[in-house]
């Protein structure tokens, strides 16, 4: 195998594409995380509603997204559901990077299901009497959710939400299968061009690990700071 030689891969074109793949990876992670959090909060709110039918619909959504592999969901969106879009929209998407868009949609919607479950168990651990008290004090349904329930539920759900964030970050690597030029995709590309397999895999692995550990430690510092005294 010989000694490791990083000089060919960390130079010129290879370094440039590695850099842009990092940007793509981080953009995809950030946007997808925002979508997942938004979907998760909305679903958790619907699950609290008194309507049994709404609750069941959310349950179906959650079960589907948790019991089908992420890769299959990405394929279904990218190859399948995309064909039902109007022709104009399809063409516009193809010009503006439809791979990125469908990776964002599919991973975001799926992780939204996981987020909603984490929030739901957070919400369930808050006493019903708190909501009643908030309502009795004159807060509306949404106000008591936003001001009383959600802040506490988020704190309780925080450890789970952090591992979901790491999971979401790792899952963005699956976007390579539909051709999004994120880190794993570009790693394979550089490997094919430079034959420096060990070196480029090491670089990618260290980058992934560094970001995952950063998310984990950022999460636990937020957790320490947000902890309610006395709980």
């Amino acid at each position, binding site marked *: 195998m010989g000694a490791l030689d990083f000089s060919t891969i960390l130079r010129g074109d290879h370094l440039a594409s590695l850099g842009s793949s990092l940007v793509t990876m981080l953009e995809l992670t950030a946007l997808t995380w925002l979508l997942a959090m938004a979907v998760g909060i909305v679903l958790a709110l619907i699950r609290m509603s008194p309507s049994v039918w709404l609750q069941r619909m959310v349950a179906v959504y959650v*079960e589907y997204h948790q019991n089908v*592999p992420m890769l299959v969901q990405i*394929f279904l969106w990218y190859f*399948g559901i995309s064909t039902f879009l109007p022709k104009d929209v399809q063409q516009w998407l193809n010009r503006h990077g439809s791979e990125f868009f469908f990776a964002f949609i599919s991973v975001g919607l799926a992780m939204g299901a*996981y987020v909603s479950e984490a929030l739901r168990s957070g919400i369930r651990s808050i006493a019903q009497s708190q909501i009643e008290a908030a309502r009795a004090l004159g807060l509306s349904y949404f106000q008591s959710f936003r001001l009383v329930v959600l802040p506490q539920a988020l704190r309780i759900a925080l450890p789970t939400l952090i591992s979901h964030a790491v999971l979401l970050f*790792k*899952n963005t690597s699956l976007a390579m299968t539909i051709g999004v030029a994120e880190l794993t995709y570009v790693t394979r590309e550089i490997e094919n061009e430079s034959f420096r397999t060990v070196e480029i895999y090491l670089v990618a692995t260290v980058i992934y*690990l560094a970001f995952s*550990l950063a998310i984990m430690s950022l999460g636990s510092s937020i957790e320490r700071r947000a902890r309610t005294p006395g709980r």
Partner: protein
Amino acid sequence: MTDILAILRDYGLLLLVGQFPNGPMGGLAITIALSIGGIALAFPLGVVLALGRISRFAVLAWPATVVVYVARGVPLIMFIFWMYYFLPVATGRPVSGLTTMLVTLVVYQAAYIAEIVRAGIEGLPRGQMEASRSLGMSYLQTMRKVILPQALYNMVPTLLSQFISTIKETSLGYVIGVNELTFAANQINTTLLTKPFQVFAILAAIYFALCFSLTLMARQLERRISARRAGLGSQSGAATTPRPQIITE
């Protein structure tokens, strides 16, 4: 709908068993075989890693901790590519995609199982260990006869959901051409070309049927086990329920 039935009629067998018996086994059969093999081999390795993680000796604790964190921080797809490159180099002969995937799943799942087992062990009251040590049992005897049997029993539902994760993870075998379910569906999609939605909807439905029924089973087991523990708890001063914060795809 008629499209879906037609696809199932023409290609159902390919999805289930691949080209078998006229060719290699594939499809759902390989997906299930990979998952069972992966989790069965990962389990003992996971227990060993867990014992390493909680060991007082840094020589044992450090490597186990590193393995666990690397698996938790690096995408599975990177592990697959590493193994795909590394296994032939290490063994000096060509290694099939199936073997590569199996080895990857074993290593990756072992790290997650280790965290589950560790949470299970740490969820038991300390008095258990102290009592059996003072009865004259060695550390390993205590682990084998007192701690692990209880911890593993409590962990059965979580281990079952880990099995479900493994099933979903086998779909990544597609990227190195393992002849499993997702690969078979892609073959069909390439042959038909005009029915991508129907093909991938069938694929999603098969995974859903398999994983969701296992999910229901895991929940049922969880209810039964916690009921039993609640019963035991009132007599013997209850263990706290271990709830590991570990989630895989």
